[in-house]
């Protein structure tokens, strides 16, 4: 993604100015933002800035859904006697996503490495990515389960969005990160503002062992996994809220007489029959095998598969910790494994 030359240009925008800008964006296109959907913050289309859930730390589902939605149609199938017609349904709509937190934006960078940069590119993801502008919003503070700092991120990291906003006393500091972002803000006529986002100090609520310090391959056969997974429900909630979990299933669904859609929907390696083979052989039969796979995917496999090198595919957003009904805590896993010789 091309970035403007020189030092980042930062400008000041008031809350009223920001609201008015977002109102314009919503009126002229598709604006997606965290919205209280029956009380739950989710990324949804908003008609105006007053529909945005201001003041939340993060939405329950991450911005992943803007590029890789929970369900999406890959094609429409029409059958008429022996005749069959296939219609490809790669999305083309443009969208602007507002309120993206740095941890989930980092998740998009990680998903890009698989869906765009590891051939063949996924045309559905690629089209959405191409047609989307991300407006980031730096966190004011780290939430109780946040640990982005421990996995290489920062609550004010601007590198993975097109426009970044930092909350300050007089409103927001706006920074154009990419040319795509600049084209969206160029007509706002804002004054340049001297602000150093890196001068802002964040306080982490707890210490988390860095996954990059753990020797993962040697821990694959460790008895820890079976023990740790005793309380796992295989409910898959952790995968659905994760900004980087990418497992999916493809299936056909009837949508009318002689009409079907080929659907891609989120899936999770936690599912018991996820790996069931045709002859009935169950690969990865134990919960511990599956929990281990998820953790290894985050901290070892994904970076290998996408050739990203030594990088964590967990962005420290803490969503899986919040959503787990039985308290499986990824930072506890890191702490336990960090203690292994």
């Amino acid at each position, binding site marked *: 993604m091309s970035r403007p030359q020189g030092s980042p240009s930062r400008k000041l925008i008031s809350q009223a100015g920001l609201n008015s800008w977002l109102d314009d964006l919503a009126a002229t296109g598709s604006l997606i933002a965290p919205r209280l959907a029956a009380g739950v913050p989710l990324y949804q289309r908003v008609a105006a800035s007053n529909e945005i859930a201001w003041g939340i730390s993060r939405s329950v589902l991450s911005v992943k859904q803007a590029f890789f939605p929970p369900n999406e149609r890959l094609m429409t199938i029409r059958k008429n006697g022996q005749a069959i017609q296939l219609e490809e349904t790669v999305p083309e709509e443009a969208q602007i996503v507002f309120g993206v937190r740095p941890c989930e934006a980092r998740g998009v960078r990680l998903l890009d490495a698989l869906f765009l940069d590891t051939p063949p590119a996924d045309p559905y993801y690629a089209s959405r990515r191409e047609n989307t502008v991300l407006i980031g919003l730096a966190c004011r503070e780290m939430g109780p389960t946040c640990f982005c700092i421990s996995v290489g991120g920062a609550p004010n990291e601007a590198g993975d969005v097109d426009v970044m906003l930092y909350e300050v006393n007089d409103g927001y500091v706006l920074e154009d990160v990419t040319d795509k972002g600049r084209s969206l803000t160029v007509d706002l006529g804002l004054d340049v503002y001297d602000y150093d986002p890196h001068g802002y100090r964040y306080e982490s609520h707890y210490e988390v062992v860095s996954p990059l310090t753990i020797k993962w391959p040697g821990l694959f056969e460790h008895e820890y996994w079976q023990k740790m997974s005793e309380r796992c429900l295989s409910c898959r909630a952790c995968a659905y809220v994760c900004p980087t979990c990418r497992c999916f299933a493809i299936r056909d669904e009837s949508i009318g007489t002689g009409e079907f859609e080929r659907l891609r929907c989120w899936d999770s390696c936690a599912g018991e029959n996820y790996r069931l083979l*045709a002859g009935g052989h169950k690969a990865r039969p134990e919960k511990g095998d599956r929990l281990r796979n998820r953790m290894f995917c985050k901290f070892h496999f994904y970076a290998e598969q996408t050739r990203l090198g030594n990088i964590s595919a967990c962005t420290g957003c803490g969503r899986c910790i919040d959503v787990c009904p039985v308290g499986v805590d990824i930072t506890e896993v890191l702490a336990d494994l960090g203690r292994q010789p």
Partner: protein
Amino acid sequence: MSANPLMPCLGKLVEVRDLAAEIKLFRIEMQNGGGEAFQSFQPGQFAFVSAFGLGEAPFGIANSAGRGPLLDFAVARLGSVTTGLHEQGAGDLVGVRGPLGNSFPMETFKGRNLIVIGGGIGGAPLRPVIQHVLDHRSDYGKLTILWAARHPSLLVFTDEYDEWRTSSNTSLHLTVDKPDEAWQGEVGLITQLLEKVAPARENAVAVTCGPPIMIQRVTRMLDGMGFAAQDSYVTLEARMHCGIGKCGRCNLGEKLVCVDGPVFNMAEVGELMETYL
């Protein structure tokens, strides 16, 4: 392959016939230029076949490109997609997406003796290896085929055994776990047959496919017979939904069966962090 790797091309069923009990052979003629991608596929590659409205599933391509242009797939009736395919007949349209995955290194096999070990429908992805060797007979040494099934009714490609037996420098050895009254051949597991045939390891490579437990036992036995791990090839089955390295379902450690496989030699399998063998 279509520019969109998740979009199948239409293929017409030219022939559907019983191959064994609950196993049918589908012979497909690609439509609307969709055959271009399949002009030069390699033995060991696979493709997704769609029963439109029910879904798609991956199958090893069961013939060699040289025996094309029709594409052969052996399909056992097990789930909804395969049941849907079994209900189709000649003239019906299905979807085909591929070719996908790596392949047996037929070039590096040249000049060597080949031992082909197939269990049940696991023999289907090995048939292109047999066909390729028979069609390039002077390029390869002795071809020893060990072919097994649980029951005589489950032996696949029975009508081709005469061709295999009568080809030069080629032998076929059959066994079944449980014979019926008409069966006059060997009875027992394929490992017993392998022990009896005892193929020489000198200048030989083995290729094995079948149920996971059979692959496990056979490859261990080959190891015991002195076959080097890099001369013992397997093609692995895995549940997969995309075939292009995205959906995450088929991983064995950091490797993905769909793009890093399905063909591995046992030295590579030995380095996998996770296997089900």
